[in-house]
């Protein structure tokens, strides 16, 4: 054994327990998920804090008592926020989004929501505190989370509501004309924006105004969301959110922001502030540092089998804090506004493929050619995903999962491009044989790191140090310049 192999052995661990399957109308019955790919022979895990030792320490995952500690930290941070304008007879809407509940098992975000409610009650005496939880395209999703995390018990009967972009709307006058929000999001004297700093959809927001995005998305009506995804272009889209947030209507109701401060490796803390743009700067620029390295590292993978094994729709399954949609674009630098005008996957790109299956513009990059095959062991419906199975050879495990996709309005054609395997083992055998690679990356939400095959782990260990340097010295200065700042901004921003 060479010394490098010995070092690698020390960094490679046994697989991390994947996030369990969850009962949901969007996924198959959890009892049908017989095997997780991380359990198969030849798999191991890497801890992100070992790949990138400069990552800050996390509160969660952190052994027993970590969630209780998170609640205390949240209360400490929230007590510092000015809430003096909230009177006991006022009403307050805590605004939440589905994404938060997909992070690290969902409990940390639920705890942030509970702590935010408690802090408002404690500081202002206001009791009329409601939860309005927005969604992406799965209109019942946050209703499921409200039940799962006991939020109705916490907020009180009738005080929680899952809201959807087709619900009754409200016109909002903005600097760019009328846009539309969901009426019940704004049906209180005050709103509190409860979100997180997780990077998630870099292909959409391009790490510009990331913290503001829900105002143009999960709190918004279809007209606004369609503006984002169809009217402005791939690098201007997220302005829709700022336009709404800047409106007099929203400014008059905005109380403060309460954010779970997360990295790809866990919950770092809580960031609560009356100034959303202060949170936004921290989320944007520290976020480039935290997530930029994993994203760039994933771009160094030359060939692999990608496994989907997480209770979320196809593009949103996680590995090391990176969603599959972004791994499908990891052949390009998604943070580079000038080098990557159109990411390999984003809706604007998807729109620009012709009837013959070729892109309208020669420069449009293909979906990550490193993904030789996708093994869909367990992932949900509820997001148009046929583009992925059309462009990446896909094996779906189990007829039940195939049938579920066939019955779902957004995925009528997903199975037209996929094949079905009876078991997880047979799907993986097929993928190994057809692709000839033994490198496997598993998107199963493993907390603190990622599950993968031994051979892929060796590659990631070898590449991590050079990636770290490339991101710090070459890429971040470019990313920051493109966003109107320089690296010195990091000195003025501190981790909360």
């Amino acid at each position: 054994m060479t010394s490098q192999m010995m070092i690698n052995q020390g960094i490679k661990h046994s697989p991390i327990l994947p996030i369990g399957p969850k009962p949901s109308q969007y996924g198959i019955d959890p009892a049908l998920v017989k095997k997780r790919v991380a359990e198969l022979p030849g798999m191991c895990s890497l801890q992100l804090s070992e790949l990138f030792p400069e990552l800050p320490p996390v509160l969660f995952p952190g052994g027993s008592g970590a969630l209780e500690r998170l609640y205390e930290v949240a209360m400490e941070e929230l007590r510092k926020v000015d809430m003096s304008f909230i009177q006991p007879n006022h009403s307050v809407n805590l605004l939440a989004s589905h994404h938060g509940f997909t992070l690290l098992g969902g409990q940390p975000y639920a705890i942030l929501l509970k702590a935010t409610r408690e802090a408002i009650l404690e500081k202002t005496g206001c009791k009329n505190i409601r939860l309005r939880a927005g969604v992406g395209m799965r209109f019942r999703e946050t209703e499921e989370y409200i039940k799962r995390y006991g939020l109705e018990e916490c907020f009180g009967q009738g005080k929680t509501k899952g809201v959807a972009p087709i619900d009754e709307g409200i016109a909002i006058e903005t600097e760019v004309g009328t846009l539309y929000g969901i009426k019940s999001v704004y049906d209180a004297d005050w709103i509190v924006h409860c979100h997180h700093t997780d990077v998630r959809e870099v292909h959409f927001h391009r790490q510009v105004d990331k913290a503001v995005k829900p105002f143009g998305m999960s709190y918004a009506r279809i007209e606004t969301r369609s503006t984002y995804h169809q009217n402005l272009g791939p690098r201007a889209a997220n302005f829709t959110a700022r336009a709404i947030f800047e409106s007099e209507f929203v400014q008059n109701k905005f109380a403060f922001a309460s954010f779970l401060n997360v990295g790809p490796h866990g919950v770092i803390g809580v960031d609560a502030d009356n100034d959303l743009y202060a949170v936004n700067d921290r989320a944007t620029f520290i976020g480039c540092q935290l997530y930029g390295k994993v994203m760039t590292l994933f771009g160094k993978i030359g060939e692999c089998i990608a496994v989907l094994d997480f209770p979320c729709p196809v593009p949103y399954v996680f590995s090391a804090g990176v969603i599959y949609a972004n791994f499908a674009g990891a052949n390009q630098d998604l943070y580079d506004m000038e080098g990557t005008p159109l990411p390999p996957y984003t809706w604007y790109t998807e729109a620009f493929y012709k009837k013959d299956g070729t892109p309208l513009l020669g420069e449009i990059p293909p979906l990550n050619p490193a993904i030789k095959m996708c093994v869909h062991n367990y992932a949900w419906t509820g997001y148009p995903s046929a583009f992925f199975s059309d462009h990446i050879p896909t094996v779906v495990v189990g007829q039940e999962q195939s049938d579920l996709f066939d019955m779902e309005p957004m995925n009528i054609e997903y199975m037209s491009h996929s094949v079905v395997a009876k078991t997880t083992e047979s799907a993986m055998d097929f993928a190994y044989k057809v692709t000839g690679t033994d490198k496997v990356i598993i998107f199963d939400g493993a907390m603190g790191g990622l599950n993968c095959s031994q051979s892929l782990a060796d590659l990631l260990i070898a590449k991590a140090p050079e990636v770290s340097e490339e991101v710090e010295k070459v890429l971040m200065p470019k990313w920051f310049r493109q966003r109107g700042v320089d690296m010195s901004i990091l000195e003025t921003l501190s981790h909360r």
Partner: protein
Amino acid sequence: MKRVTILAKVDPNICTGCKICEKVCPVYAVKVSDRKSQVSEPDCRGCANCADRCPVHAITMVKRAEPFTVGVDVSRFDPGEIKELCAKAHFNPEQVLCYCVSVRAEEVAAAILEGCDTPDKISSRTGIRTGCSIECIQPILRLLAAAGIPLKPDLNGWQWYGQTVTAWTLPQEVKNKYGSRGFYFEEDKALLEQIAAIDPAQ
């Protein structure tokens, strides 16, 4: 074009007649009369909006016994007219407008040329906006407006409220104010124009 494979089914014993399903159906295929909701089976395009917003879970989606396909045959129309209408709305005829069922700009343009003059008629005819029902409302409104058809939202429903800003109507002062924050307004407009101008046959 869409394969319509599923259908909304109401359980009248659960329905309370609240009319929410009526307000969210993009093709007006569900109506409440005598405090009970009823789905017109041939008209339902299987988007599941009604099922997913019914507050008492009275609606479920079921497999159709006889699936069918809706769509407009673009070849029946003058390609020049299709191209002109798409160009007016700043779309390439072959660009996809509906990510769920892959309806392209040319098919929506053809539906308009055929006589569809509202978003619901276009959805019914082509299947657009009967997947997620969210993301393609603005392109439909843009193409109708480009055809000179007045847009009249239904004041009793929540199907859609109105047209919004585009890359071509963004005020210059807004671009100046926020352009240095990482938004690439002008560059994106140029990119969308470049796409719209491409001849797909080339």
